[in-house]
């Protein structure tokens, strides 16, 4: 069964339809790019998929669980990271790992093992006892991603994980994403960097609450006769401006 399946998923706020009957599925181990302009309905859709917001209509299953009746199960089985909120700045690196491990119900033994592994992989052993507030942004983002998949979730949701990060660190961050995907973790990611859209296996583009395009980056470029994903995105937005 695909890790994410939605059918006609809709959210209304009063008379405003934030997410309008979106239907798609994401395959296991896939890196799925979820794109759209500000206000297109991405965050609302993502909140429904994470079990944080009840849909108005339609169906969705995430990690095999129903978004209406099993939202707690969903939360236990997914990882989530956003640029805006990720780690506790006033806790040490080690303490943040321990805190999130505890939240997801890992045993003390597992937390200890995973802490060692994680610090080694990120080459952050020397910073284990530093406050997170003292880390450069790029390090925080890499640490935050690693913590989001600490409990081995089958899916991880990344909400603009690389905003403002320097170009080198941004690429190191994508190395982590590739590595997780190659281990079978499904990655659902939003970004405003169109070059990053190219790193996804498939990409969907939302306009005004609807999914207007969904395919591999290469086929989307062909479909829109565009030189880059940036062009594809601008064409869809212009079409909106005309309507």
């Amino acid at each position, binding site marked *: 069964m695909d890790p994410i399946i939605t059918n006609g998923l809709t959210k209304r706020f009063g008379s405003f339809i934030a997410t309008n009957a979106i239907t798609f599925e994401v395959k296991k181990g896939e890196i799925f790019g979820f794109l759209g302009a500000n206000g297109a309905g991405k965050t609302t859709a993502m909140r429904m998929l994470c079990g944080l917001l009840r849909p108005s209509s339609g169906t969705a299953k995430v990690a095999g669980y129903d978004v209406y009746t099993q939202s707690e199960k969903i939360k236990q089985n997914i990882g989530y990271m956003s640029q805006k909120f990720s780690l506790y700045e006033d806790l040490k690196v080690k303490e943040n790992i321990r805190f999130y491990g505890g939240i997801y119900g890992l045993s003390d033994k597992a937390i200890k093992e995973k802490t060692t592994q994680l610090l080694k992989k990120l080459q952050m052993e020397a910073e284990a006892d530093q406050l997170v507030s003292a880390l450069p942004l790029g390090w925080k983002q890499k640490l935050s991603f690693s913590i989001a998949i600490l409990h081995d979730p089958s899916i991880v949701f990344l909400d603009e994980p690389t905003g403002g990060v320097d170009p080198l660190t941004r690429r190191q961050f994508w190395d982590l994403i590739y590595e997780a995907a190659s281990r079978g973790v499904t990655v659902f990611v939003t970004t405003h960097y169109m070059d990053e859209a190219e790193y996804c296996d498939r990409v969907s583009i939302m306009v005004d609450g609807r999914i207007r395009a969904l395919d591999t980056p290469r086929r989307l470029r062909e479909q829109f006769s565009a030189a880059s994903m*940036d062009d594809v995105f601008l064409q869809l937005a212009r079409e909106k401006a005309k309507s």
Partner: protein
Amino acid sequence: MQTPIVVQDVHKSFGAVKALHNISFTVQEGELFGLIGPDGAGKSTLFRILTTLLLADKGQATVNGLDVVKDYKAIRKIAGYMPGRFSLYQDLTVEENLHFFATIFNTTVEANYDLIEEIYVQIAPFKKRPAGKLSGGMKQKLALCCALVHKPAVLFLDEPTTGVDPVSRKEFWDMLQRLKQKGIAILVSTPYMDEAMLCDRVALIQNGQLLNIDTPQHIIAQFSKPMWAVRAKHMYRLIQDLRAFPGTDSCYAFGEYLHLTLKDGTAGVDALQAYLDTKHHEAFTMFSIQAGIEDCFMELMNTENV
């Protein structure tokens, strides 16, 4: 006419952290000058010093010939500043925010309406909406209007397009080009490397130090190594193989291609081909390209770290 911005040997530390180290540059009249660098590079600290909100430890700076320390009151009257964090009143409407800022500067929206008209008409349909309820792109347009409402001589824009979608970003830069033509000097910062190409000159900043100051075209022309774009069916495997190749100098993902430089330049291509033949990549393509501003930035970052 005074030079809009002159920065000379400015230093600023916060405890042990050197936020700015030996910063010097000038912005000319009607110039769109970009400060390009990641979060934490020191961009906002520099903006705060130039807008008289923070004192430098060392060095001098002037805005339109006015000293940022002695003449801070005068600078505040002629500078337009859009801080990195959305700083308008969320619970006032679009219209109320604009009138509020005009009043603070002892003027009216009507007096300088020609300057903001083009931008304001785009948000006018939402003029009764609280600023906090606008989308990201709309918030930025309103903030720009508020920074312009007193007809400033110099405009300081700290990351106006961060977190804004590509369409709104493009619109925003189009507006900056038109403001420039009206003779306003603009200092703008951004973490988006592609936006550097839209500036007259740029300063690349990292860890509080300027890596380079020049026109974007010159910066690109200075990149001396031959570079190739490479792709194959399995990109993750390709990037790992290329990084494992001893002759590789750098290999980074760039959209649908990898950008590759070799230690021996063009002389290293044959050895690379022989190496890749053993790896059996499907749909392999490789062709020569010109480096872009992001390639240059990463190259400079790597040299600085050495």
